[in-house]
């Protein structure tokens, strides 16, 4: 292998880097590094001028490695990779060095040491770059079918959107009927629309189309394959059905927490949950004296999160009670009312105007509910008045949080997608990839991710459907070349990698008479777990080979330690 021809480009990032790191000095240093044929600096590497400068330099010096020392690869790597491609070299021959977030910005008071560190970081990058290899991204075809798991508002909305885009869509619902919570709630705040109407319009979208396939009383049983080529096995009341699919949407929603034992729930007649109340109201029954208790079972040790929708639901239902029964007395006992946004805050105002009583309690002084001659007695210590108040009620509504579905664990295992510690699913990136999972081709929407209002659920569902439609419409998926491979000469077929892989992407196969590990590129997510598990350095990850990382360590040793002496 001939010596690499590396170009190094140090970014001033205006003052962000240059005001701390002596950029010219780093450039001079870079020129002394092995394989570096040109080192230069730009005011803003990511600007038009910056980019074209790099491009010209690549061509003029016929570079085959490019190192940019600037900000973070997490935001800018794609941009510079693109420039490399435009300049005619493989984009995987690019290496990013972060001297802003990881240097100038965090050593603002030590320009000297920061400059030295920047040099070492650049040297490490250059030493890795020298060992980079061009990579070809693999393509694989996509089955033009989507599977939506969950027939609630999220699932329905997503499915309707997919069908509208003329995509074969299977909707898998475990209950006997479509709708989920939507069919148990009569009106949707803040506009007080009838949920029935919404449900019907969504259903009508599906009913007519031969693209829509609805599976009731069906459970997810098994999932194999990878983006574009999944095989989803479901159990449709007893009989097994295999669905080939290109994308999978998780819309399994959440469920209402049953506060058994709290505030006499289950023992004291009259203590109910929001869904019980929804049922009463839908039958036109509105109690005379109602007390809502908020945050029952949430925002407390063990379940720290705020369920986000309970306050608004209580406000909505308080107003509905007053609509049906203007004389009714309604009290909301809360820890603080979370009616975020204009519309919800408006509800809060109306509720207070119409005499809904708000009492604030603290976790430290729990509210007590007892039965006293025919009615319920709610004893609450009001934090604002700093005194104990007794409220009598016919109905005490316990506003409990949405919790993750018991079976979300199984779904997580089958789809190999992560959950947080409360059992809600974790998206790939909270800002950059909010409706996707790290696992390509699997998407998330609705309360399965986090308790959400109907509006939010629908936004997410539409977003997820749009995202899922991309590979299907494109007809192929491109797999980033950070996948692993096994060096057949070194592999001893000990199977460590097979055990270590979270994605069943590695198997021991026979290749010309020898047992060796084989990686399925499309299934490999490039985590590198197999690399660390391999005792013999046979397993390698593209773009992160042990030789590349080893070279970075050697470089640091050379430039930091040998400098010392």
């Amino acid at each position, binding site marked *: 292998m001939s010596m690499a021809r590396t170009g190094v480009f140090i970014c001033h990032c205006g003052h962000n880097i240059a005001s701390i790191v002596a950029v010219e000095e780093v450039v001079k240093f870079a020129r002394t590094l092995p394989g570096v044929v040109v080192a230069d600096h730009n005011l803003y590497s990511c600007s038009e001028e910056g980019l074209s400068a790099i491009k010209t330099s690549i061509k003029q010096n016929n570079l085959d490695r490019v190192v940019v020392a600037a900000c*973070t*690869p*997490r935001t800018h790597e794609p941009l510079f990779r693109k420039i490399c491609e435009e300049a005619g070299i493989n984009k995987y021959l690019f290496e990013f060095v*972060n001297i*802003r*977030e*990881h*240097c100038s*910005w*965090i*050593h*603002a*008071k*030590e320009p000297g*040491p*920061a400059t*030295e*560190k920047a040099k*070492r*970081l650049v040297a*490490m990058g250059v030493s890795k770059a020298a060992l980079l290899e061009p990579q070809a991204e693999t393509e694989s075809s996509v089955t033009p079918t989507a599977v939506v798991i969950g027939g609630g508002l999220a699932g329905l909305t997503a499915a309707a959107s997919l069908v509208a885009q003329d995509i074969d869509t299977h909707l898998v619902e475990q209950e006997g009927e479509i709708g989920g919570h939507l069919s148990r709630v009569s009106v949707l705040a803040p506009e007080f629309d009838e949920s029935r109407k919404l449900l019907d319009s969504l259903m009508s979208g599906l009913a007519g189309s031969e693209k829509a396939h609805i599976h009731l009383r069906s459970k997810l049983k098994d999932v194999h394959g990878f983006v574009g080529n999944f095989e989803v096995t479901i159990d449709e009341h007893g009989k097994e059905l295999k669905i080939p699919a290109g994308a999978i949407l998780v819309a399994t929603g959440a469920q209402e927490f049953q506060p058994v034992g709290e505030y006499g729930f289950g023992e004291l007649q009259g203590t109910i949950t929001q869904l019980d109340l929804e049922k009463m109201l839908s039958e036109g029954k509105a109690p005379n004296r109602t007390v809502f208790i908020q945050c029952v079972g949430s925002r407390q040790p063990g379940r720290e999160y705020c369920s986000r929708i309970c306050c608004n639901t209580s406000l909505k239902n308080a107003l509905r009670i007053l609509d049906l029964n203007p004389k009714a007395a309604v009290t909301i006992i809360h820890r603080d009312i979370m009616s975020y946004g204009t519309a919800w805050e408006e509800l809060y105002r109306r509720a207070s105007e119409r005499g809904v009583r708000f009492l604030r309690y603290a976790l430290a002084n729990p509210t007590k509910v007892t039965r006293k001659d025919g009615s319920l007695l709610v004893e609450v210590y009001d934090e604002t008045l700093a005194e104990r108040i007794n409220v009598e009620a016919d109905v005490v509504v316990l506003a409990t949080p949405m919790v993750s579905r018991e079976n979300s664990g199984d779904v997580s295992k089958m789809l*190999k*997608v*992560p*959950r*947080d*510690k409360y059992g809600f699913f*974790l998206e*790939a*990136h*909270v800002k950059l990839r909010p409706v996707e999972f*790290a696992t390509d081709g699997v998407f998330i929407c609705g309360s399965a991710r986090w308790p959400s209002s109907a509006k939010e659920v629908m936004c997410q569902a539409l977003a997820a459907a749009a995202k899922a439609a991309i590979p299907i419409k494109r007809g192929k998926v491109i797999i980033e070349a*950070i996948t692993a491979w096994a060096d057949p000469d070194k592999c001893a077929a000990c199977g460590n990698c097979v055990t*270590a892989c*979270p*994605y069943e992407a590695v198997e021991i196969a026979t290749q010309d008479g020898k047992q060796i590990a084989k990686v399925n590129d499309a299934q490999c*997510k*490039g*985590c*590198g*777990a197999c*690399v*660390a*598990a391999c005792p013999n*350095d046979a397993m390698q*990850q593209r773009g*992160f080979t*042990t030789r590349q*990382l*080893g070279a*970075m*360590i*050697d470089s*640091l*040793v050379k430039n*930091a*330690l040998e400098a010392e002496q």
Partner: protein
Amino acid sequence: MTEFEPTILAFCCNWCSYAGADLAGVSRLQMPPNVHIVRVMCSASVKPEYAIKAISQGIDGVLVLGCHIGDCHYMTGNHRTAKRFPVVQKLLEDVGIDKTRLRLDWVSAAEGEKFQKVVTEFVEDVKRLGPNPLKEVRF
């Protein structure tokens, strides 16, 4: 005699700790300039061999940072990391190298402060230990 400035190598996973380090930067959280980050996709891909190689060659400390348990981008990657590195620490201890020179910790993408804290603490710890004795050893 100027104060001893340790050379420290850090491995950060792309999804959490590296992002956490970025956040620390964006938030201008100041910390000592001894730490050099190598980006990997997941802490599970960090071979103990790297730490051993670095420490054997005289690097004063090695930091391995991953996502919090349960938040791994690859589900259980960091579980393996959590299983692996305590063993390496023990082995270092067995041959007489202070295990403090190798630290494993978790930093999420939202924990700029945690990143700053871990880095600052670690640099302090290693300073307290003094230079890696293997620097002096001639084999």
